[in-house]
């Protein structure tokens, strides 16, 4: 893991309040593994103070990595205001990545909202051996498949207002798929808002399908030093809390206490 100043190569709007940023860093592009994240120093002054965590959404050429982010507050607003030539302090790659085999056939990726950021990276690595279910509130939030460099055939969309794809939740699509197929997916990877992940847990846990989720939590250090990013471990684990930045952000779905979280 390294800490450096990375230059913005591009920073383009790809959906409502959502931008895709390319940052120049040969080192991070080389080391990045799907599921890992970076901590971004959003400005030079003491307010806002803390770095913001963002999943690595992909790598571009040899020397650029991607961040897909939604503008939700001050830090992401500052990022959205940046142009090529500007730069940010970057710390990463951080955390664990997704586990996936050389031959990932039958993998199912389930993304809610910005959860598509780490899964888009994973999907790219799996190419046509997977299907990606992408859920949004509405069509204006939909991330164009090409922006993530994915082949259209591999992505199924759901919107809660029905403005695009399936009318409903992305977990509906997951449920159908699990029912419809044999063969059930051999591997499920999910990332999104906590309520969605709880729903995924509800569908998966009893089926015993291999499933990894990428979690979020407020963070200070991103390095496992401050213990600020605790999430409750499932009963019977060797500890009461995991730390998202170090033990995660990718966890086996069985490792988390979905009641407490």
């Amino acid at each position, binding site marked *: *893991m*390294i*800490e450096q100043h990375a230059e913005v190569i591009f920073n383009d709007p790809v959906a409502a309040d959502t931008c895709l940023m390319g940052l120049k860093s040969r080192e991070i592009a080389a080391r990045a593994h799907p599921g890992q994240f970076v901590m971004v*120093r959003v400005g030079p002054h*003491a*307010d*806002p*103070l*803390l*770095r913001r965590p963002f999943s690595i959404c992909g790598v571009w050429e040899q020397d650029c990595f991607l961040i897909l982010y939604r503008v939700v507050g001050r830090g992401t607003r500052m990022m959205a205001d940046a142009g090529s030539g500007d730069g940010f*302090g970057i*710390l990463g790659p951080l955390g664990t990545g997704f586990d996936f085999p050389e031959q990932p056939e039958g993998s199912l990726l389930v993304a809610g909202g910005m959860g598509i950021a780490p899964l888009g990276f994973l999907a790219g690595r799996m190419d046509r051996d997977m299907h990606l279910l992408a859920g949004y509130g509405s069509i204006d939030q939909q991330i164009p498949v090409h922006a993530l460099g994915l082949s259209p055939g591999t992505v199924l969309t759901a919107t809660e207002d029905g403005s695009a794809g399936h009318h409903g939740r992305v977990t509906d699509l997951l449920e159908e798929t699990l029912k419809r197929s044999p063969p059930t997916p051999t591997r499920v990877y999910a990332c999104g808002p906590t309520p969605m992940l709880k729903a995924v847990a509800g569908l998966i846990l009893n089926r015993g399908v291999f499933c990894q989720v990428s979690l979020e*939590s*407020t*963070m*200070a*250090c*991103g*390095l*496992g*030093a*401050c*213990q*600020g*990013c*605790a*999430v*409750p471990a499932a009963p019977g684990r060797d*500890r*009461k*809390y995991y730390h998202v930045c*170090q033990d995660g952000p990718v966890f086996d779905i069985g490792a988390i206490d979905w009641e*407490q979280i």
Partner: protein
Amino acid sequence: MSPVDLNVRLGPLELKNPVLTASGTFGYGREFAELVDPSRLGGMVVKGISLKPRPGNPPPRIVETPCGMLNAIGLANVGLDAFLKEKLPWLQTLHTAVIVNIYGHTLEEYAQVAAGLNGIEGISALEVNISCPNVARGGMAFGADPDMSARVTEAVLKHIDKPVIVKLSPNVTDIGVIARAVETAGAHALSLINTLTGMAIDIETRKPVLGNSSGGLSGPAIRPVALYMVHQVVKAVRIPVIGVGGIVTAEDALQFLMAGASAVEVGTGNFVYPKATLEMVDGLTRFCEKKGIPAITEIIGAAQQDC
């Protein structure tokens, strides 16, 4: 130009430079090892250790505030035994001062943790966190009362042969009184400040943001308060003082040294700039070179005169 001498003394403890890491913000050192070579630091204060492991508080544990952050980690730590088994061996390989921060909820706990660390090689000193709730006194912090502060100090000193640094709480009416009580009890040095108690409320949920309701405020926001208290305590005691609180840059550190601190600890700054401590060491050297100061000790207390 002859190299600048950054050596400083904390009573019996000698440091190669005045830059330390603050407890709870640098883990057990290893978390930062890829970015910060510990041998370049004056020393590291590791996460607060208690007799038994503690899981800590329910999340959320941190929230950002203007130029600062609140934390309610709840002193989560692996406990004395796991520390000795899992963390210490790596720390023992380092060429820097390793200071172990300890705490307890009873005088006995403090004494037992100290005893458990006694005689162990590779540990340069203890830093005693007296900001914790005193179970016997309905959770009122040990550090809020001069008498209790002194008794914790004595309890620790009785069980350890290493230098003992007592870390003071800023949430008191007169920190000078506490400082003198702890000095009289025999502490070798003092470090201050620990966090100021604070709170944040989520106006959507109408509840405190932190799982623990309140937390400790740290970061640049508290620097002026820390600097004032260091300035006061340096006047009040004869033992060396370590400045802590909102120190991020070499310029920040210089303010504390000039106020009379013999060393500084960097806490929240490590989160913002993981290499803050290294840049601070270089910055102190550059400042001394620019000003033609041969030894950093020359500026310690420089701003004490006119007060």
